[in-house]
């Protein structure tokens, strides 16, 4: 497997959807190509860092306010009867 082919398969590899044969070829490539190993490893870390970051969490007080605003508007909409929104 060449570096360009590794890159082409990287997303499928990280998502765990590669067929066994391609996965073995890719891991074989990673065992000797340090650059691709680093790209693979740091891309994986990138995903994990974002996934675990708790970026843009909705604070509970804002959450309650938004929910009650939503439900109030829904009920107003219901009273007005069917219409396009």
């Amino acid at each position, binding site marked *: 497997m060449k570096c360009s082919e590794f890159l082409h398969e*990287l997303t499928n590899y990280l998502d765990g959807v590669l067929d066994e044969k391609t996965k073995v070829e890719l891991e074989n490539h990673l065992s000797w190509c340090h650059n691709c190993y680093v790209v693979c490893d*740091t891309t994986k870390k990138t995903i994990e860092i974002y996934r675990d970051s708790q970026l*843009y969490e909705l604070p509970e007080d804002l959450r309650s306010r938004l929910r009650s605003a*939503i439900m109030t508007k*829904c009920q107003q909409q219901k009273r007005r009867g069917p219409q396009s929104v």
Partner: protein
Amino acid sequence: MGAIQNKLGTPVSDELALVQAAKKGDDSAFEELVRRYDRNVFRIAQHITQNREDAEDVVQEAFLKAYGNLAQFQEQSKFYTWLVRIAVNEALMKLRRRKPERTVSLDEDIKTEDDSLPREIADWSPNPEQQYTQSELREILSKTIQGLPPGFRTVFVLRDVEGLSTEETAAALELSVPAVKSRLLRARLQLRERLGKYFQKRESGNGKKPDVTSGDGNQ
């Protein structure tokens, strides 16, 4: 917050049952759907709009639209995927209003395959996120993802942050599966490269951390 009860006293806990109850006019079932997904919609909206007030508006407008159009929801897809589609459209509309000089669409800035080939290979230090405080880290991550075109960051957020499948992401964004995969790869590689500035191994004697507040991750 437990599962809501239907008229027979049986817990209505799964999504489809909640949707069907809401369609019949049970607002507490709809409220439960709001509770279930409001945090996800907020996160997606803020990732796309990069603005807190806009994200709050998107949460309200997306749920209100879902409520008003519930009768049209066919139940062939998951409610959540349908809701995400509404929310993404609302968020993109906000972004267009805020940046009228540019046409914002999911197709913008989609260039050739080669534009995200890794240029920077340097390895990262082990546990790089631990070099920063929580608030510094959030600043870095937020600034870095803001630098991606909306079409890339939307795919990244749905797939990698919210955990939608490739097929669900494609359905929510009305894109093909290959288009989602291609954008996801480029989003991941671009983020990796931009984060490298903060996270890469530093030689001894050059251990100074990059200044979080003056980085150029927002290009």
